[in-house]
């Protein structure tokens, strides 16, 4: 009995391997897209933000605080690349020419006056320089105030330099009432590369699983199904064989793509057993979808077209091409009906070194999807193999 079943499965698998379209859709196309996406995901070469500085107010304390304090430390840690200009006009011209995105001009000495100029599109450079100007101004004013207060309190020769040094130390230690603390790696989270690879793998999975169940309709048209039904092979075995082919092709495609993206592109999938659970559940969901489609369709072309539509709609909604979750609203609510979303969610749960059991929740939802869609699918597709 089992021998007959495996003979059917093996024959179909062999035929798929020879007709290279399964390889193209199951491996080549997704692998190529994963590769392209992971290259484009790196974005333009990250350079420092180009900003400018000009001082037309001599030795104003705020000029020293800005240029030798905040700006030079942001320059040192690679956030900014600072160019010095002789006057406001030169700096403005550089912004208009697109050489720099934003600049700081120190315009007054007593009282200190600072102007932050930014191009309307350089929002990040502008905001950083704005914050730098504010914090430097606050520091300089704070020192002025401290000197005044110390003179009132009778401290002998309060010195601006000394106070400035000590305030600088306090500021760089981050000492104060408001502190920013890194949560660090414990957040876990999925990196962009893995997210894109998972999106492409699940998107093409819904095309790949066609090579199997869809064969029922093709064999029906060619007349080979009738002959098969006349043989001593039980009808349920014919259906099961097609389901198994879809399942095996789907798992093989996912496994190869996961290995490809992990080994060659550095995608980080997380706990392998957990990923395996997700793959099995995801493939079950995809196979159940194509089973229902085959049960409803009359010709292989029709089934192929419907499955392609579902694959595209699910893929787009489920975030295979772009994150729907970012947009919020209706689209991100709708995305939870797709197995694609839950596959990605499973990877999110596995990220940060979680054990395989973290994938069980999302995998369970994909299995529920498979049951809800697959049972009517089996009943309908079962009619095709009735003698």
């Amino acid at each position, binding site marked *: 009995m089992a021998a007959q079943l495996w003979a059917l499965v093996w024959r179909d698998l062999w035929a798929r391997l020879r007709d290279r379209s399964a390889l193209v859709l199951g491996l080549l196309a997704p692998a190529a897209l994963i590769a392209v996406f992971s290259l484009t995901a790196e974005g333009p070469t990250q350079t420092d933000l180009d900003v400018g500085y000009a001082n037309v107010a001599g030795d104003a304390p705020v000029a020293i605080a800005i240029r030798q304090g905040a700006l030079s430390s942001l320059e040192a840690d690679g956030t900014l690349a600072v160019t010095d200009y002789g006057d406001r006009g030169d700096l403005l011209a550089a912004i208009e020419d697109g050489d720099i995105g934003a600049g700081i001009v120190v315009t007054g000495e007593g009282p200190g006056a600072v102007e932050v100029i930014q191009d309307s599109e350089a929002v990040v450079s502008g905001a950083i320089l704005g914050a730098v100007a504010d914090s430097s101004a606050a520091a300089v004013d704070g020192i002025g105030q401290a000197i005044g207060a110390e003179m009132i309190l009778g401290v002998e020769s309060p010195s601006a330099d000394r106070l400035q040094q000590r305030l600088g130390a*306090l500021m760089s230690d981050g000492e*104060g009432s408001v502190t920013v603390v890194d949560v660090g790696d414990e957040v876990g989270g999925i990196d962009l590369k893995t997210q894109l690879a998972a999106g492409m793998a699940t998107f093409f999975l819904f095309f790949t699983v066609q090579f199997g169940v869809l064969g029922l309709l093709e064999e029906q048209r060619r007349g080979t199904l009738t002959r098969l039904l006349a043989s001593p092979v039980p009808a349920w075995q014919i259906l099961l064989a097609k389901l198994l082919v879809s399942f095996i092709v789907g798992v093989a495609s996912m496994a190869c793509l996961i290995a490809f993206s992990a080994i060659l592109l550095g995608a980080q999938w997380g706990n392998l057993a957990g990923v395996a659970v997700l793959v099995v559940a995801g493939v079950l969901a995809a196979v159940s979808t194509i089973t229902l489609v085959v049960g409803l369709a009359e010709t292989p072309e029709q089934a192929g077209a419907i499955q392609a539509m579902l694959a595209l709609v699910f893929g787009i909604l489920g975030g295979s091409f772009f994150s729907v979750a970012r947009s919020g609203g209706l689209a991100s609510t709708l995305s939870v009906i797709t197995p694609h979303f839950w596959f990605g969610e499973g990877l999110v749960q596995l990220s940060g070194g979680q054990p395989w059991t973290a994938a069980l929740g999302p995998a369970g939802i994909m299995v529920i999807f498979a049951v809800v869609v697959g049972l009517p699918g089996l009943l309908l597709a079962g009619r095709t193999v009735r003698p």
Partner: protein
Amino acid sequence: MTSTSTLDSIVAIVKANMIRLRNERSNLFFLVILPLMIVFALGLAIGGEASDSLVGVVDPTPSEAGQTVLDVVDDIDNVTVRRYDTAQELRDEIARRAVDVGWVAEPGEEGGLTLQWYAAAGEGFRLREIVENTVRSMNVDRQVLQLVTEDAGVDEAEAVTALAQAEVFLEPTTVERTTTGGDPENDSANIRAVLAAGQLTLFIFLSSLTGASYLLSTRLLGVTRRTRAAPVPVSAIIAGEGLSRFLVALLQAAIVFFGSWLLFGVDWKAPWAVLALSVGMALVGSGGAMLLGTMARTDQQVGAIGLLLGLVLAALGGSMQPLQFFPDALRQIAFVTPHAWMNDALWRILVDGEGFAQVWPSIVVLAAAGIVLLAVASVALARTLR
């Protein structure tokens, strides 16, 4: 055979192809609904708020200090703040990259505040620098108080009084902000147009290639050979099939062009230049489709290779993510695809405000590539007919 009857044959072949196209109902989905749905979804997902840097904030006990930091961040253009109730919610959203960075505000002793900083893996947005500098200015008062109490050896109350007296004589430093350049309000409209433009390129080529199955089935069923026996000259068959593919490509271009303009208000800026580019791309697409329809042996092959080339070249050619956001080396390589020529020209039209006068070289490149492909495909198809 007279030239009139050759023309009649071409028209007949084109007509038969168009009727087949119309009769297949799934084409309504693939040619009309799908591309417009993607333009719409992209507009939602990337064109709107989602292209902003998304900042998540959890602040269960709002404080003045927390609000100050939030105001600074909220004031930055292209930053959208979303609020969450619990740290777990924020953590999950960051883990699935639905939010880029965020913080949980936790009140400390004596009105202090700790911001626990979260960032998505590999996130490149420099919000942290902005927040840190903001926090610095907020901390100055506290630090100055500490200096004065230490130096003068007085308690905090005395120091506060002295500082308040000193403040009267102080002329505070002023910080003025100036913005130059265009109106950033137009940016989101531009981005929507660029995204629609990418889909215009993608679908002209993809729909052409998947349409190759018509030519394939005509060949496999022996229709082309029987037409040849009609007798219809080989040149008429080739012209008819080529023209059919070209018309499908143009139809697809028109659907995306007018659909995104009329339904989603995409402003094409220089419509004639965009249409000329579309015609160039349609030539490339129809050449590719004829070649695929001639070389392929099964319908599955056409489907698989059509999807492979249609999506991979589109991704590499900047249809899914603008070329301007590519790493530098990859941007050079991208120009092996026809898509990059079209997408680059469309970017220059939509973002840099260029027109026909500047982008015509791209149109020439596309048209030339299309004509070469069509010529090669014609020779290949002619061989199968003789």
